[in-house]
């Protein structure tokens, strides 16, 4: 076991040796992360407004969306989007439609994380006591002013920790894109591992790399959200 351990540590140099595969791979992870967070927030804002609207049809659509994508495993969503839309469009239009794997991956992961963002935003807005809104309206504040001065400052403070948590799990989810042919870091490691046959250092190393990144992100997120949280109380 000790022999294997020392040879494993020596094998970490493979990451440097094959940096031409590894670095662009890591870049893909961050690219997917950035795109998914942006689209996820947009979807989340849109659907949380829909879920909070007074129209019952809109509300049902919002509930269906969050129910569907919060319950569908991300991998299943990803694989479904990888196979089905392109083929379906090809069949319907009669033309040869293909999507870039990156587009498919971002689309599927955004829809998934959008459902989680929807719930986070909705919970944040609902956490503001009704009395505060009524008081503001009673003092003659307009709806937008109430939103800006009363609802948002309190809601944002409430949802910030959850929001950062979701961002971190989106980053962890970006590793799934390797399964639909996006050349991210996991994909690169799989390639190098089957080329060199050195599974031990490579898979341990990649776990440590992701651990370092995600742990740093979590720490920063806590540092960012704690002062905000305490400010209100």
């Amino acid at each position, binding site marked *: 076991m000790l022999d294997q*351990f020392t040879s494993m540590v020596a094998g970490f140099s493979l990451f440097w040796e094959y940096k031409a595969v590894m670095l662009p791979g890591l870049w893909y992870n961050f690219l997917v992360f950035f795109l998914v967070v942006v689209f996820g927030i947009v979807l989340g804002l849109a659907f949380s407004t829909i879920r909070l609207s007074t129209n019952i049809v809109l509300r049902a659509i919002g509930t269906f969306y969050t129910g569907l994508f919060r*319950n569908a495993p991300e991998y299943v969503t990803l*694989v*479904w989007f990888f196979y089905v839309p392109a083929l379906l469009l090809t069949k319907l239009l009669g033309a040869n439609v293909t999507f870039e794997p990156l587009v498919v991956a971002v689309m599927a992961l955004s829809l998934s994380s959008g459902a989680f963002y929807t719930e986070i935003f909705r919970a944040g807005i609902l956490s503001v006591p009704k009395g505060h809104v009524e008081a503001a309206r009673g003092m003659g504040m307009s709806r937008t002013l109430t939103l800006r001065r009363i609802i948002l400052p309190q809601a944002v403070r409430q949802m910030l920790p959850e929001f950062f948590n979701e961002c971190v799990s989106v980053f962890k989810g970006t*590793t799934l894109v390797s*399964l639909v042919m996006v050349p991210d870091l996991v994909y690169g490691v799989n390639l190098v591992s089957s080329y060199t046959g050195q599974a031990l250092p490579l*898979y341990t190393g990649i776990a440590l790399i*992701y651990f370092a990144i995600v*742990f740093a992100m979590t720490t920063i997120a806590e540092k960012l959200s704690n002062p905000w949280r305490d400010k209100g109380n």
Partner: protein
Amino acid sequence: MFSIMETSWGRAMWNARDNLLDGLAITLQITGYGFVGALIIGLLLCLITMYVKPLHWPARFLINFFRATPIICQLMWVNYVWPPMFGWPNTLFEAGCVALAIQSAGYLAETFRAGIEGINRGHIEAGRSLGMSAQLIMRRIILPQAFHTMAPAIMNQFMVVIRSSTLVSIIGVSDLMHWGHHLSAEWFEPIGIMSTIAVFYIVVIWTLSSIFKWYSERLRNRYV
């Protein structure tokens, strides 16, 4: 009338129904073993960080390591690194269970810690001054209260495990997802087959999560 049985993918799936049901059973089994393993490892890690001083930092490192690594890395790590390093796990099924267990153990350890620390110190002191032993306090005062605060988070973690269990197919476990890939490659009908597999998963998971949601609402209404 349109009937699924008249489509080629419908027939393909019907003919492979035994495999698909086996796959679903494996998915549920791996989730069950993984979750029970996670509860045990999580409780151990939590107790170590709280009561065993010299092992506090190693246990904290493990918790953070388990929490901060993506499940797909852990699956590959357990599957490719553990057997040559530690001589275990021997089968793909065991590797899948272990990976799911350690992933969730980190989260559950934190949940347990929050649940135990969240109990009013006065309750424990009251128990002690009434002459209860530490064990009795644990059983009668801490655990019943901690259970109510932790139950929703634990059930939530179960949903995470069952959703992550779809990924065990990447290390070669023949779960439902594996058969989905297999059949779509064999019949080249991914639209119907993959959609049906997705519906399978969504129905199972949505049902479970609705039950859990109902139960945690009930807990909250009854005791708060």
